[in-house]
């Protein structure tokens, strides 16, 4: 937390001017957005999180939405993926069912997610991050850990100022805002980025960590969800401060490896380093139906469409996958995943679809499903994908047909050509 001690180093987040005294506004530009902290120039590990990412992008692209509550999410059955800060005032939260969100905020503008656009913007943000340091560990499309140790010489500035400049640049060049958390470990950097959203910049130093965590609920600790919090509650543990007084051996005896994590994180001890392991492990696509579906023939249509989406994304990212994974969610929210390993990697909608069909046949037993998804994992470069086959020469012809369809789609748009499976099933106007 920015302690307001006048002697702490600090600067203005708007004009980046150093602030020597204890003034409450910037001595140069008059902005109140000052950042002061005793460890400000010693900390190097940051967590950056875009503010209401999807909603901010939609607002950026349609200025009319600026002062309206905006919810990004799908269909009447879908859930809220993102709510803008105006919608959040009305109580809309992400992962909330859409009908509940609209009860809370009937005047909200609901926009169907345009994932391709968000992914594009996400990549732009990531490119800017990678200009700061090679050690960028993305957690999702819109957040990442950054390790800035040793970048002072490069940027001629300590990490804190580099990050403030980055936040300013994202606003100016991309048109969305981010929140920054700066600390000495991943756990507290992530906590910090959430403290002042939106457009936040929070610092948690080593000296204040214990004090800061003392009154916080145990759910702040990464890995403590609802269920585990209930277990802790049953044992009388609600705050991190209580954990701070407990012995490591005691916690481990009670909660196993999780106990060790509780012990360490409650004391602000987190050794996890920022790792660059941003490579995708799988590529998949899924959809939640407006109404539950049990009929095999109806599921097949979705399976085909999703297989094509997966193939499209594989093609764009120049990947192929060797294990096909089918995911189904039943009407009572049970998830079934079935996978099958192929003997060579594939990048073709045809093979993904045909493998998915075999898996689906066994599951289409009259059960009502609310969601279907298909994907591939076990990714590799596409050069060894789909070798010619001795036994199924038609596969080579289907592959050629698919490549031809892709060229047509590149030229004339997605809807220019489609297979009989999906033809006529696309809704003209959502």
């Amino acid at each position, binding site marked *: 937390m920015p302690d307001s001690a006048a002697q702490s180093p600090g600067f203005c987040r708007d004009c980046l001017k150093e602030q020597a005294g204890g003034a409450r506004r910037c001595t140069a530009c008059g902005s109140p957005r000052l950042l002061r902290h005793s460890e400000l120039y010693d900390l190097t590990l940051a967590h950056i999180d875009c503010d209401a990412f999807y909603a901010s992008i939609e607002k950026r692209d349609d200025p009319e939405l600026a002062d309206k509550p905006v919810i990004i999410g799908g269909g009447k059955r879908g859930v809220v993926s993102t709510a803008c800060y105006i919608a959040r005032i009305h109580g809309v939260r992400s992962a909330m069912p859409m009908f509940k969100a609209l009860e809370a905020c009937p005047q909200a503008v609901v926009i169907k997610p345009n994932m391709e656009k968000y992914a594009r913007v996400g990549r732009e943000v990531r490119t800017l991050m990678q200009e700061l340091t090679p050690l960028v560990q993305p957690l999702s499309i819109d957040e990442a850990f950054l390790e800035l140790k040793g970048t002072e010489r490069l940027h001629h500035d300590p990490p804190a100022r580099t990050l403030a400049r980055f936040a300013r640049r994202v606003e100016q060049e991309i048109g969305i805002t981010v929140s920054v958390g700066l600390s000495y470990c991943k756990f507290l950097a992530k906590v910090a980025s959430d403290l002042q959203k939106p457009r936040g910049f929070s610092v948690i130093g080593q000296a204040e960590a214990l004090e800061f965590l003392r009154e916080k609920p145990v759910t702040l600790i990464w890995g403590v969800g609802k269920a585990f919090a209930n277990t802790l509650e049953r044992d009388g543990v609600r705050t991190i401060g209580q954990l701070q007084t407990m012995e490591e051996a005691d916690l481990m005896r009670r909660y196993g490896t999780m106990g060790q994590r509780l012990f360490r994180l409650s004391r602000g001890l987190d050794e996890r380093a920022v790792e660059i392991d941003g490579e995708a492990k799988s590529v998949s696509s899924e959809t939640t139906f407006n109404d539950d579906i049990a009929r095999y023939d109806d599921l097949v249509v979705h399976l085909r469409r999703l297989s094509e989406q997966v193939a499209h994304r594989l093609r764009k990212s120049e990947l192929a996958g060797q294990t096909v994974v089918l995911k189904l969610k039943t009407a009572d929210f049970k998830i079934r995943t079935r996978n*099958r*390993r*192929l*003997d*060579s990697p594939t990048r073709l909608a045809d093979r993904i679809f*045909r*493998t998915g069909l*075999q898996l689906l046949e066994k599951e289409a037993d009259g059960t009502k499903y609310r969601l279907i998804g298909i994907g591939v994992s076990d990714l*590799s470069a596409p*050069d*060894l994908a789909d*070798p*010619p*086959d*001795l*036994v*199924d020469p038609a596969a080579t012809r289907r592959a050629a047909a698919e490549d031809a369809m892709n060229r047509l789609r590149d030229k004339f748009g997605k809807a220019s050509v489609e297979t009989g499976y999906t033809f006529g099933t696309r809704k003209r106007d959502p």
Partner: protein
Amino acid sequence: MRITLERSNLLKSLNHVHRVVERRNTIPILSNVLLRSDGASLEMKATDLDLEITEATPAQVEQSGATTVPAHLLYDIVRKLPDGSEVLLATNAEGTAMTVASGRSKFSLQCLPQSDFPDLTAGSFSHSFRLKATDLKMLIDRTQFAISTEETRYYLNGIFMHTVESKGELKLRAVATDGHRLARADVEAPSGSEGMPGIIIPRKTVSELQKLLDNPDLVVTVEVSDAKIRLTIGSIVMTSKLIDGTFPDYQRVIPANNDKELRVDCQSFAQAVDRVSTISSERGRAVKLALSEGQMTLTVNNPDSGSATEELPVGYEHDPLEIGFNAKYLLDITSQLTGTDAIFMLADPGSPTLVRDLAAEDALYVLMPMRV
């Protein structure tokens, strides 16, 4: 049940049958081996519901009876008993436990009732013939490596066996393919096999069977129906379900018009392929063969580690040709070749290549090239 038998006999038989039992089973009885003593022998039976192996071994039977005990457990116990010892197997009065005793060691194993043990042997067989173990082993050895492991194409997950007329003779033929390579081997059709249905013997059955064919003097009795095969090898009886599917028309795949002949010395070719492929990555072990008159250059390029080349004198008298193959597939084939020379019949870098063993005209292999 109360019997005594030699540890070596028990171990040998258990070794044959226990492998059928899967390590993990959701149905408890399938983890067990059935023991049944009668007269002067102990019969052991294990199954995974697709494959069943029964073997009998001599025993002194004090009291006949039957029970089932965990197969891997019993095998591990007997394996660790001292050489040359005698083993006592005795069930208690209630039939809930069986004692395994030898020397000063004594074990008690929980039993499941023998009446719960599934029986696979029902049904009759339409064809029956006798085949030399060496012939059967040869059919398996030459084709087994090409069996597909891809579940999507379950009908390729085994060896296709059928009779076929070739050059005026009736042959018993084995074929396996995974879509990338194909292996075919023939033996003279034994009497009784004429008109038998084409059958696909599952991979697991094939590999268990292969281990039972060590003794070259044995003659195997083979019985087949549309759905099952039964093989009797001495005191061992193996019954297996067949794969219920249609094997693709493999003849169409075997190239007939490849006109470029390449003759290589098997051993030096295999060694060269093995050497250059050292540098290749696990995935996609492609080796490029560049052919010119009398010479082959083998090349492997791995962007991550480097490259390798080797030159080899070969018999080749056609236009230069470059073609790539999966190194492992080449080695799988060369390890089955018995003669000194192998003949490759090539067409172009994108078409299937035919490989023949000069010493064994009754086997042939087809290999799909890789893009290099």
